[in-house]
């Protein structure tokens, strides 16, 4: 319970603080000792896609700010876990200091990660987690709780009202991530916005045609509908298109979780005011800081807080360092992101 409360609190802070951070000259309390240098290998699930490239940019920024830090960013271009494993093996032989892994298949990567640990190399995970015995810390970009609450708060803000009917268009009814977000969203609505009524949760079976139709039907069946959550990368644009074609931009608000490129047109034409995602550059930045702290021993098991300099103090829950900075893309900032 205390964990939940803490998360509630920090997610509010995260929303209030918004973007910021990575534009100023980064200063941090994490330092590299004079005369020594550190090499960090950063492994994405898949190299060459915009999401991870932007994470890597943040990692490079951190390396530059600290000096004496080398970041090797490499990964399989086809997302193959076997190739990812062989890269970890290669880096183990080469003797890097830390390997930060975003595992595309934790079980395939586990032997390579354990072998690296046996050689004294520090292993951390970022973006996606692996089994606890294969890494020391996981840099978690956002918990389900934070994502759910950020979406609710964003929609309420866009609606400009704390009452009215809202509906959710989800991926499938069996999608674990989405269901966890929905639980968090329901709790947030009940807790903070009791006059907002959730009238329907509809799956789109990850088919954009169905997402479109469902949103269309929801608007007709509930003429007073004020807002829709499109909580998958398929549901969100599908539902946004339905609002646009129905000429209800501005009357029915929509928000959800997606990458900026998929939503750019809808944000620019005003159908969508807010798109929720975490700050990918900050995720890369924080990963490098944690890597250094794990290497020099300043971040140990049992820590409750991690000082990430310009990014602020980040909570450490168990063996997870939380980024706690969900980003809201709006028409003012969406052009700065290309992924």
């Amino acid at each position, binding site marked *: 319970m205390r964990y939940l409360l803490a998360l509630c609190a920090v997610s509010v802070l995260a929303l209030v603080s918004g973007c910021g951070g990575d534009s100023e000259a980064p200063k941090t309390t994490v330092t590299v000792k004079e005369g020594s240098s550190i090499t960090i290998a950063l492994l994405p699930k898949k190299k060459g896609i915009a999401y991870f490239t932007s994470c890597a940019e943040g990692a490079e920024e951190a390396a530059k700010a600290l000096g004496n830090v080398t970041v090797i960013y490499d990964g399989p271009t086809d997302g193959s876990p076997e190739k990812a494993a062989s890269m970890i093996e290669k880096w183990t032989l080469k003797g890097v200091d830390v390997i930060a892994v975003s595992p595309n298949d934790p079980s395939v990567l586990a032997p390579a990660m354990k072998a690296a640990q046996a050689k004294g190399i520090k292993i951390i995970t970022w973006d996606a987690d692996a089994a606890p015995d294969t890494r020391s810390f996981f840099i978690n970009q956002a918990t389900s709780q934070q994502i759910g609450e950020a979406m609710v708060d964003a929609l309420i803000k866009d609606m400009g009202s704390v009452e009215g009917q809202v509906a959710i268009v989800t991926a499938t009814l069996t999608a674990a991530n989405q269901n966890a977000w929905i639980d968090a969203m329901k709790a947030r609505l009940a807790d903070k916005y009791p006059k907002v009524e959730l009238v329907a949760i509809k799956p789109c079976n990850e088919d954009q045609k169905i997402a479109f139709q469902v949103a269309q039907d929801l608007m007709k*069946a509930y003429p007073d509908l004020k807002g829709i959550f499109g909580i998958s990368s398929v549901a969100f644009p599908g539902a946004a298109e339905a609002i646009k074609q129905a000429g209800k931009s501005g009357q029915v608000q929509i928000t959800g979780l997606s990458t900026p490129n998929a939503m750019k047109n809808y944000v620019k034409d005003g159908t969508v005011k807010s798109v929720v995602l975490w700050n990918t550059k900050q995720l890369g930045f924080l990963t490098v800081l944690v890597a250094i702290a794990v290497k020099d021993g300043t971040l140990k098991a049992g820590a409750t807080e991690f000082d990430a300099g310009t990014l602020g103090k980040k909570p450490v829950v168990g063996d997870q360092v939380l980024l706690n900075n969900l980003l809201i893309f709006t028409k003012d900032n969406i052009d700065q992101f290309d992924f």
Partner: protein
Amino acid sequence: MMFSFLRTREVAVAGLILLTIIVVSCVNGDFFSGQNARDILIAAAPGMIVACGLTLIIVMGEIDISMGALMGLCAAVLGKLVSADHAALPVWAASFIVLALGAGIGLINGLLVTVGKVPSIIATLGMLTALIGVSDLVMAGSTIGNFPDSLRSFAIGQVGFIPVPVLVAVLCIVACVVLTRYTPLGRRMYAVGSNPHAARLAGLPVQRLKLLAFVLTGALTALATLISAPQLDVIEAGFGRQFELLVVTAVVVGGTSISGGMGTIIGSALGVILLSLVRTVLIFLQLGVSATYWERAIQGGFIIAAVLADHVGRKRGGHS
């Protein structure tokens, strides 16, 4: 003759559609609107187009379950060809390529079944899996956007007051009705389905007729993609997935016998409308959040009830 034709499943399905509209309109008056009818027809258009081809395949005692996956591939290829971020080909050229792709996949399906003698359910199941794999390769886990307006008008444009997808669907239905009822070619297809052995003895080109139906279904699937994929600003990887379930069910609900020889284009088209209604109806009934997990069961129950009611009704009425 004319009337005995009408006294079949088409009437039953049309009646059910009417009944559904009346009941739901009583519960939620907003259901009964021109806009809603328009949206429902647009949503049903791709299903109706593909059902035209599938009816012919099933009438001849075969089946195709690769349409959803083919739709996904057609959408991916269409996106890559037309998008300003990719090949940026003219829309007419890309449409032509996509139609050829659909017909080509249909041809492979048909050859597997007629020349390869692979049971059609296995051949098209294999094709379904392969096509999903290829689409994933083409999409590479991302989305495709940035389409010219001329492409988008295929799905959201209108001719007069008729939406383009509905117009295309009606044209396909009319063409296939004429084909099945007024041409020797169509009558031969029914002959193949009702008695394949006799058809072969009578010298009908059974294999060629089947091949034709598969090619036609492939091309119609591509056509259905052209009028539905550009409905949205972006094309996602999962496009069309499980679409075959809707079409196969609709064709059977519409009165086409799964063992061949019997069935009409109109019945299949009505079946698609009936099934497309279900999701919309469930939203308009305003069952609330608690009904979320019941939806699939209600959809399935509705389909079973529809077919059952028709069977029972026909036994009482003396028809079988």
